[in-house]
């Protein structure tokens, strides 16, 4: 079974970025050249940029009518310079909402790691890009770091809401985004592990309780809060704050908590917010 720690040690000993170690691993695994893998990942990045842009325009509504237009509201307030949490965090919130709204409205997205959690990673990376003026190559590399952590999450736990609750979807996305953000901001391989662990720990136990079984409520807004948790975790790790519990143990914990979670709280729409009076009313009105 893969361990993120193994990659951290390999990267440290070779003096490489974590993403470079993952890239080498995948060149061997997929029997493809570095250039091919870069191009494939660049395609993902292009689609991510496209969905941020499409979502911020705020024109689309979901089939149920519950989702759409919120990203544009946050972006509008932000553009007026009128915001509580600074341009970076408010920007990440707007971008995460944007991508998740595009998904809910049948627009084009990259599952990262799932469709329901597709807003977190692009929002965080494109925010760090603005802050650090990152190169395109470094952003693509950071996506490999995110995906590498995702592979460990899949193998040791799960990235499916039906198997592990929302902690497995938005939680995984936040951990992946935190690790990628640290690398993109110039942090060490060890710091990517700390950031991922801190983000994942903050999401443990989160249930998957979609109203009407749709990827809308509360999924879209959790993409935005997931992005802010990822940025907070990255900020801590970059400052030298360590996670007391190492990343692989945190991932194993997420898997175990997911198994202990009752079925009603794992994407069945039979618990949590889905069975509130309002949640039931929304379901009845729509279905």
């Amino acid at each position, binding site marked *: 079974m893969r361990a993120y720690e193994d990659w951290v040690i390999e990267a440290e000993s070779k003096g490489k970025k974590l993403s470079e170690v993952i890239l080498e691993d995948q060149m061997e695994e997929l029997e493809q050249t570095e250039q091919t893998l870069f191009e494939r990942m660049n395609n993902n990045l292009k689609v991510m940029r496209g969905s941020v842009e499409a979502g911020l325009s705020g024109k689309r509504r979901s089939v149920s009518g519950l989702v759409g237009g919120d990203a544009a509201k946050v972006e509008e307030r932000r553009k007026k310079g009128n915001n509580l949490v600074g341009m970076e965090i408010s920007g990440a919130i707007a971008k995460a909402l944007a991508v998740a709204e595009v998904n809910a409205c049948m627009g084009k997205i990259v*599952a990262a790691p799932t469709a329901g959690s597709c807003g977190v990673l692009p929002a965080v990376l494109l925010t760090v890009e603005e802050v650090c003026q990152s190169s395109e190559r470094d952003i693509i590399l950071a996506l490999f770091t995110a995906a590498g952590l995702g592979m460990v999450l899949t193998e040791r736990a799960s990235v499916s809401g039906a198997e592990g609750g929302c902690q497995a979807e938005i939680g995984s996305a936040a951990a992946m985004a935190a690790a990628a953000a640290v690398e993109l901001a110039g942090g060490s391989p060890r710091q990517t592990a700390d950031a991922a662990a801190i983000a994942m720990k903050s999401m443990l136990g989160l249930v998957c309780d979609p109203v009407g079984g749709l990827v809308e409520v509360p999924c879209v807004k959790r993409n935005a809060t997931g992005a802010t948790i990822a940025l907070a975790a990255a900020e801590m790790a970059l400052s030298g704050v360590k996670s007391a519990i190492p990343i692989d143990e945190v991932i194993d914990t997420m898997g175990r908590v997911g198994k202990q979670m009752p079925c009603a709280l794992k994407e069945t729409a039979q618990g949590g917010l889905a069975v509130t009076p309002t949640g039931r009313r929304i379901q009845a009105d729509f*279905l």
Partner: protein
Amino acid sequence: MAKSNVFDLLGPIMVGPSSSHTAGAVRLGGMARKILGEEPVEGTIFLHGSFAKTGKGHGTDLALLAGLLGMLPDDERIPDAWKIAEERGLSVKYEVIDLGEVHPNTVKFDLKGKNGVHLQVIGSSIGGGTIVIGKINEYEVDIRGDYPTLVVLHQDLPGVVAQVTLLLATAQINIASMRVAREKKGAQALMILETDQTIDKAVLELLRKLPKIEQAMAIEPL
């Protein structure tokens, strides 16, 4: 747990909102189209379980239809599938069905093609956009779209299987796996072969001309 790669975690590129209910549904429609082997003109789409319950909000109905029209999961015209179906002369209706003990995300297609082929296909979306075709007409199958697949309906007589494999051997097509099933002795039978090489049109035409072969379909991998 099978070994994953970076593009399992970042990807697929798809039209939302759900990998199982939208992207998987497009692929199921696409697979049914390939099995039919010609332009579908009429069909009934039977939705089972979660596809029936939450399908509307996930655009499952549109996604299945988009697949029947030959679209891929990242096609931004998926939300317009009804309009496109109308333009292309494909008329479908939807029904809810209970298929019993199958995966919750299961659909049954009853399709008619423009040259008169009529068949039924049952398939499930089993997570992350992965699909499996479980039934063609009355035959249990297990087609996942990983390999080029040849589906042959034929009469259950000695030598029929041999003439098919001989033809493939002559065409330098290697068989990766093979399954033969029949309704009853001497009646209609079904052969499913997964191959390492693509089965091109010429080979398929030759296959169709072999005696005792009723129907032959070549399905490219997804």
